[in-house]
């Protein structure tokens, strides 16, 4: 009987926890839901989530488990590939899916339409595809080769060759490693190289900038990698987690012309990219290399054309006065399933 009671105690303590910790949110969800949500089952997902959030969990215990799996089996979870010497990779860059070719073909069909949309507005579109970490730091993969990355990059190179594009080829001049060890993004050397190469192309079209832009570096501090977070290793004890990485944040100081009360003109260069554009000081290095202010309209999770389409479709007023749009996207996003916005854009431009 005692053993039954022990198990029931666990079940009922979970129940009490749900009542105590999610009482209000559960009640709010149930109160706010329209009848059709009750009937169609749409409500269930929200309630399940509220119940899930109400169950206590130990970050330390999860971290310990993730750390033991990582150190013991070199397993970093379903979304992270653990290479050698604490190098982590997004499995998105390595995996192959039967629909990859279909997604890539759809995106490549979008390309001329996107270029044309900006050309129609007299805006120069500069394309900055970010090479896969797996391909550029292949020697630390340990166990697999970056074949999928190469297939994507080669397909892109072929497609780009047939479209009139202003593009930055980072792949061939990459400063190895150029990426954080425990993060999917470029590190400061990668970001700096990408910024300088991009600026070169912009300056060749617009001429050199004249604003006074300087760079200051902040104090060195630990930088938690997003892949380590994904693998649950940020909560792991230090001896089980990958070695920490450190960064000195860069900050661009722009001294605008004009008097104290003058309105500064809106930047004529826009950066519409993915999380790469938000990481490792890319925009800071870009502004320094351009000697111009750049407006940041990038979007974390924007993938291939997320930020670009958002601007075109939802905030076209941002493009008034713009001369250049820098369109950065990670190469791996070529094969990701199309977002709703991308699908809709493709339907519109292809006329069906």
């Amino acid at each position, binding site marked *: 009987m005692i053993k039954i009671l022990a198990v029931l105690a666990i079940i009922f303590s979970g129940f009490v926890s749900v009542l105590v910790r999610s009482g209000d949110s559960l009640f709010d969800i149930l109160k706010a839901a329209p009848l059709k949500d009750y009937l169609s089952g749409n409500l269930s997902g929200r309630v399940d989530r509220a119940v899930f959030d109400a*169950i206590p969990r130990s970050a330390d215990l999860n971290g310990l*488990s993730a750390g033991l799996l990582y150190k013991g089996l070199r397993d970093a979870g379903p979304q992270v590939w653990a290479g050698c010497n604490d190098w982590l990779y997004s499995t998105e860059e390595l995996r192959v899916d039967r629909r990859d070719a279909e997604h890539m073909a759809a995106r490549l069909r979008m390309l001329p339409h996107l270029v044309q949309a900006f050309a129609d507005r007299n805006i120069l579109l500069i394309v900055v595809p970010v090479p896969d970490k797996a391909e550029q730091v292949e020697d630390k993969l340990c166990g697999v080769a970056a074949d999928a990355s190469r297939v994507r990059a080669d397909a892109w190179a072929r497609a780009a060759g047939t479209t009139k594009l202003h593009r930055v080829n980072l792949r061939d001049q990459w400063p190895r490693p150029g990426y954080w060890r425990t993060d999917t993004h470029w590190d400061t050397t990668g970001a700096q190289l990408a910024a300088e190469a991009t600026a070169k192309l912009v300056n060749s079209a617009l001429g050199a900038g004249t604003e006074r832009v300087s760079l200051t570096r902040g104090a060195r501090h630990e930088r938690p990698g997003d892949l380590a977070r994904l693998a649950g290793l940020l909560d792991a004890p230090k001896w089980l987690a990958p070695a920490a990485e450190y960064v000195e944040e860069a900050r661009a100081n722009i001294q605008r012309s004009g008097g104290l009360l003058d309105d500064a003109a809106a930047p004529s260069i826009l950066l519409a990219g993915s999380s790469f554009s938000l990481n490792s000081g890319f925009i800071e290095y870009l502004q320094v290399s351009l000697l111009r202010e750049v407006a940041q309209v990038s979007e974390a999770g924007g993938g291939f054309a997320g930020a670009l389409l958002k601007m075109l479709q939802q905030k076209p007023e941002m493009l008034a006065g713009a001369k250049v749009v820098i369109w950065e996207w990670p190469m791996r996003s070529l094969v990701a399933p199309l977002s709703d916005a991308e699908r809709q854009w493709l339907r519109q431009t292809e006329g069906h």
Partner: protein
Amino acid sequence: MVFVSDAFVFVFLPLFLIAYAGVPAFLRNSTILFFSLVFYGWWRFDFLPLLVAIACWSWLTGLWIARASGPERRWALLAGIVPPLVSLVYFKYVNLIVDSLASLGAPIKDWSAIPLPIGLSFFVFGAISYSVDVFRKTVPAEPSLINYSTYQAMFGHLVAGPVVRYQSVAERLKSRVFDSNEFAEGLRRFMLGFAQKVLIGDTLAPLVDAGYALPAPSMCDTIVTVAAYTLHLYFDFAGYSSMAIGLGLMIGLKFPENFDNPYLSTSLADFWRRWHISLSSWLRDYLYIPLGGNRAGRFRSYVNLMVTMALGGLWHGASWTFMIWGIWHGLGLVIGRAWNALRFPDMPALVGHVITLVFVMIGWMLFRAQDWPTAATMFSGLAGQHGLAMSNGFTAALRPIEVVTLLIGIGLVYLPALAKSSPSLISFVTRPPFMLAALLWLWSLWVMQSRTVIPFLYFQF
């Protein structure tokens, strides 16, 4: 709602247990029924009327069958069987029929797919077996609509079986008393099933998905994928059945066993005696035998077997690949029977086991493929048309924990056979102690929590 969720374990189950223990005995079936409807409605409330209508109709026609005599009994039986069957065909197979006609060039436009009410197949099979059993006078008609609906809708077996026959729960539905040993046994079965599903079945699922997503799998990719699916399917389904049986026992209802170490079979007939037992015995009693079974000569029995297995295949899902899977097994059973009929010598057990397992695994390749092109890709992979060694794409998807789980799964499959020589070990293997089940369940709960948190964590790209 699914058993393996916080909402079930920490909200639905405690609320149900409180209500069930708190109401007087005569309201216990109503309590089960009420909670079962909520359990089902968690998926979609708008399909509940369909289930209620089938249960009411089946109950009414059961009474009619019991009271009718002469030719009217047959009409009553038909009335009991046909409408539930029509609802099954409509919801489950009309999409397939329309898609197939469209692919043959029929001018079908703007067809919006009909959603399949979950659990409908189990529900309809329960209704059919009840009507037939009342007709055969195996069981008396149930006079109480509440009792009958409770049998039909009981949340333990409502969504994914086992296929429970009315006769197996009829007595307990009328009266049952709380038995702490039975409750403990039910809890033990529930916890073990939970652990089977979470720790082995669900762990292998992503590997199977990755293998089936490959555009050109190598021979090695295919073999590992199929091995993973073979174990994933078994531990997922057997785990779910075990949870259902456990939940039934906790409230005094005994559901039939559904699995008996099927991957230790030494022939295909043996496999079908051990795999999804409640379904295979249903197909035998309500399809194969009514078709004539073995009684009309050898050739006719082969035809009956093929028809039964083909329809059994189609019952699993509305896709031609399921039907071909059924035919594949029908063919295997026919060959097995012909082998015996021609008095060929019995194969050594080990050889029979290997052949059976390979046959079953090839069948699973069809079973898992969502369409023909996918199945064809996997078969070409197995034939080595895309190379022999493991590909980079698949290696990147193959987590070390999945490899370990795969090995543990294989070990668990063979453990009962290896433990044969030691009675205490076989008892430990076939009926692990309560506290071990509780520890595994706790571990599973923890794994479930950490898994569910991952999709919400990653939003940066």
